[in-house]
């Protein structure tokens, strides 16, 4: 394999050989030594052996060594390298997977996948040629550029050394989009993807460049928590659910799952896990004030990934649902009275709260009350009035969304509505969609029921008044009201709780624009400002753990972030990636051989030649 040169232009430096030889002979000043007679020396120099080519070579060895040193230095300046890649990239973005699965160990006290990637990448950085630049991009759930395109080995190595695993699932599309954005300013035609292969097999992305997919060996046996949730049970209790899963290469193991609250084990269950098992565990938890629960999986055998062995769940405080229904909507109040844990306002001798979970009213002014769910009866939302008018004719429902939580088990067949919403044009449905409305029930000439989400508020609009319909007399009416309550419970977070995922942290309930300091696992420290609604959004939470948020001297609030990713826990590795344009990129398991630079070897050889020259010059002639 012949070496190639990156700086072939420096070959002109070989011209320095001419002045070197000239100066050698011009400046060769031999010390004059007077000796008695030259007789013997003449005979010696006239000897054929002295004048043999080798002896001549030895007589001019110093010159030859100097020529050799100069030639080696010029060769080193020409930046030779051994081409070990089929195609060389002058500018190469490197996408490094730092998702949770990259933290998997190959064996106990072994290396993580990220360590392996770092090792191979360090070799590539060391072998980087002067005309090559790398741009390091780390990606988990999001992608970020670690370095610009650079040839600076120290900068690249520093960025690489500072890289840690994030307890998040991987999203390769984010990384590819970032790479695509990089390519707009600094074009390239290849991208190196370093991952353990724990990626979605299908990527919704059209590749504008070639991908070299280098896959590291998968981690070892792993079990972890993939789901952690709680559902409100009758009687104010919570049913807490924990689901476990294992990797494809998981070996049978035993252990314990602990449910902890404030570092106290409140429940536990012994486990016997086998390959392919995915047990779902349930715990009963008494209701009460809100609490942060931790599910911790303790295995007696090796477990390659620790980030999925714990999960945190914030269980809200148990309280009744607050519903506002005017007194004259007796049908609704009657249906609500049959439901547990529902407080209907206004009540006599009971102060009306300022905030409700559910507002049901046929007065337009009630729709301004703060609530998570508002249900307007017989009111056309102001922004829809140009699209729909109501005529005083009877009508019936033609179709309705049976899969909608509001209309589950509710039949509108044969229900007579004395209000007939009429669309003003043929494009009403499109116009409603543009306004964010979804049609839940369609009448003969227009929509009967709409819903729209505005921020955290869900608005439901019945374009007919239920009192002028046969709906209250149907069995579906209390079901509809119950669905409303369930929706409100869900929207208010009173019905169920899901463990928060790592990636982005969100919390609410702070004073508007309050300064909040956040501390969390892995020395996480951050200070952010709440928005005008007192919410914290978009806070990065790269590591699984319990985050504590303190706002202006108030009580600290705990928010858990958990991995809870079946794909990451399973450590499943794909062998190829499928892209939009039916392009398939196969993974290579053998580490890519980067071009090997030779300049330092040649420079070292020049240094050795210099030492030889010095030694040769200084050594006395051998005495016989």
């Amino acid at each position, binding site marked *: 394999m012949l070496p190639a040169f990156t700086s072939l232009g420096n070959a002109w430096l070989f011209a320095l050989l001419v002045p070197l030889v000239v100066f050698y002979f011009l400046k*060769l000043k*031999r*010390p*004059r*030594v*007077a*000796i*008695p*007679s*030259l*007789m*013997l*020396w*003449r*005979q*010696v*120099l006239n*000897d054929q*052996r*002295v004048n043999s080519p080798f*002896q001549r070579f*030895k*007589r*001019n*060895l*110093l010159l030859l060594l100097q020529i050799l040193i100069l030639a080696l230095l010029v060769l080193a300046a020409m930046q030779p390298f051994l081409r070990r890649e089929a195609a060389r990239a002058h500018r190469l973005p490197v996408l490094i997977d730092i998702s949770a699965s990259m933290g998997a160990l190959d064996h106990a006290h072994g290396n993580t996948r990220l360590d392996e990637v770092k090792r191979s990448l360090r070799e590539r950085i060391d072998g980087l040629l002067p005309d090559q630049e790398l741009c390091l991009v780390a990606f988990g759930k999001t992608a970020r550029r670690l370095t610009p395109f650079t040839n600076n080995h120290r900068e690249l190595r520093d960025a690489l050394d500072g890289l840690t695993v994030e307890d998040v699932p991987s999203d390769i599309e984010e990384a590819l989009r970032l790479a695509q954005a990089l390519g707009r300013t600094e074009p390239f035609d290849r991208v190196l993807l370093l991952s353990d292969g724990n990626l979605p097999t299908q990527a919704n992305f059209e590749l504008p460049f070639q991908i070299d997919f280098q896959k590291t060996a998968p981690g070892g046996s792993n079990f972890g928590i993939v789901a952690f949730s709680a559902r409100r049970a009758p009687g104010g209790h919570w049913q807490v659910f924990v689901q476990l899963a294992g990797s494809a290469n998981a070996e049978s193991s035993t252990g314990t799952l602990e449910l902890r609250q404030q570092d106290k084990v409140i429940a536990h269950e012994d486990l016997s896990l086998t390959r392919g098992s995915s047990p779902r565990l349930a715990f009963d938890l008494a209701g009460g004030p809100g609490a942060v629960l931790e599910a911790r999986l303790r295995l007696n055998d090796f477990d390659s990934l620790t980030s999925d062995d714990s999960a945190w769940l914030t269980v809200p405080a148990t309280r009744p649902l607050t519903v506002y229904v005017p007194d004259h909507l007796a049908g609704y109040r009657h249906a609500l009275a049959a439901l547990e844990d529902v407080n209907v306002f206004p009540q006599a001798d009971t102060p009306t709260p300022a905030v409700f979970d559910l507002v049901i009213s046929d007065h337009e002014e009630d729709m301004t009350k703060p609530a998570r769910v508002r249900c307007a009866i017989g009111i056309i939302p102001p922004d829809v009035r140009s699209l729909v008018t109501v005529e005083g004719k009877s009508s019936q429902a033609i179709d309705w969304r049976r899969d909608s939580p509001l209309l589950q088990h509710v039949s509108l067949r044969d229900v007579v509505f004395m209000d007939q919403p009429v669309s003003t044009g043929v494009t009403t449905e499109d116009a409603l969609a543009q306004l964010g409305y979804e049609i839940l029930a369609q009448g003969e000439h227009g929509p009967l029921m709409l819903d729209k989400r505005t921020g955290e508020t869900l608005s439901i609009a019945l374009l007919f008044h239920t009192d002028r319909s046969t709906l209250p007399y149907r069995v579906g009416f209390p079901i509809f009201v119950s669905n409303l309550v369930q929706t409100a419970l869900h929207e208010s977070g009173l019905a169920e709780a899901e463990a928060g995922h790592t990636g982005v942290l969100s919390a609410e309930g702070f004073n508007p624009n309050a300064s909040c300091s956040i501390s969390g696992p892995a020395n996480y420290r951050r200070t952010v400002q709440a928005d005008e609604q007192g919410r914290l959004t978009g806070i990065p939470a790269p590591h699984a753990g319990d985050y504590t948020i303190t706002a202006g001297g108030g009580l600290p609030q705990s928010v858990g972030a958990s991995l809870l990713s079946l794909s990451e826990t399973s450590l499943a590795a794909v062998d190829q990636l499928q892209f939009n344009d039916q392009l398939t990129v196969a993974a290579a398991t053998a580490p890519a051989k980067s071009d090997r630079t030779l300049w330092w070897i040649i420079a070292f050889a020049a240094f050795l030649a210099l030492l030889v020259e010095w030694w040769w*010059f*200084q*050594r*006395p*002639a*051998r*005495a*016989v």
Partner: protein
Amino acid sequence: MTVPAPQLTALLSNRDLDRLARLRLKVSRRFTNRGRGEHLGVKGGTSTEFCDYRDYTAGDDVRFVDWNIFARIQRPYLKQFHQEEELHVALLVDASRSMLFEEKLALAQRLAAAFGVLGLRGGEKVSAYALGTAGPSPRLQPTRGRSAQGKLFTFLESIEGGGDTPVERGIEGFLRQHSGRGVAVVISDFLTDGDLRRSFNLLHNAGLEIYAVQLLGPSELAPEITGDLRFVDSETAANLDISAAGDLLSLYHEYRRAHEAQLTALCQQRSGKFLSISSAEPFERVVFDLLRRRGWIV
């Protein structure tokens, strides 16, 4: 308290002179002069030591007829006696510029003084010549007797080197002035490009047994070379560029030994003797050890 005797010469100590007084030159060839000397001639002579008889022939001196034998057998026989002939010891000291290196000339002067003392103490005729001097070659006319030691020492001490005449031309110049047979002690480094064979032939044909002493300095016997050098010949001022190389010195030694062997052969082929010594050798060791062991002196 004993007062030390004054030194006769700076060349030889009194102790060395005493030791030399007990020694004689050992000459293998009888190239001697007709004059009476202490060396026995090959032919019968007039000494008192009986040698042999021979038949009387007409014209023989009747004084040597053994009359006792004639009276017994009535035939005349002549008694023959060993002839004690005079030996001419010619001292040739190379005083060219090359001999100025590393005390070669000083040792040559001392060796010449030693050979001269041996000759004078042995009753031989001794003459001395300085070869290759800057000006005309100085010469000590043939002299004999212990009383001539002073002249010999004065002559040898006065030799100043610095000439550039090669030794072979110096020998030829010597032979033009010299007469008499005996021994020619040639003390030189013999580093000459000239034809020494011719010079030695001339010495041999002149009836001189060649005693050649080669003096080489330590730097000539074991030179050390570092890097690139320009050698300058002390006599011809010729230059020669030398670069240090491992095999160069081995070749030098090879040629030096060949030159030495050639000189040895030239001397031996002419019934002479050859000795190569270092100028760093102690004088006493050379004279009283080396020369005696080699059979030059007894």
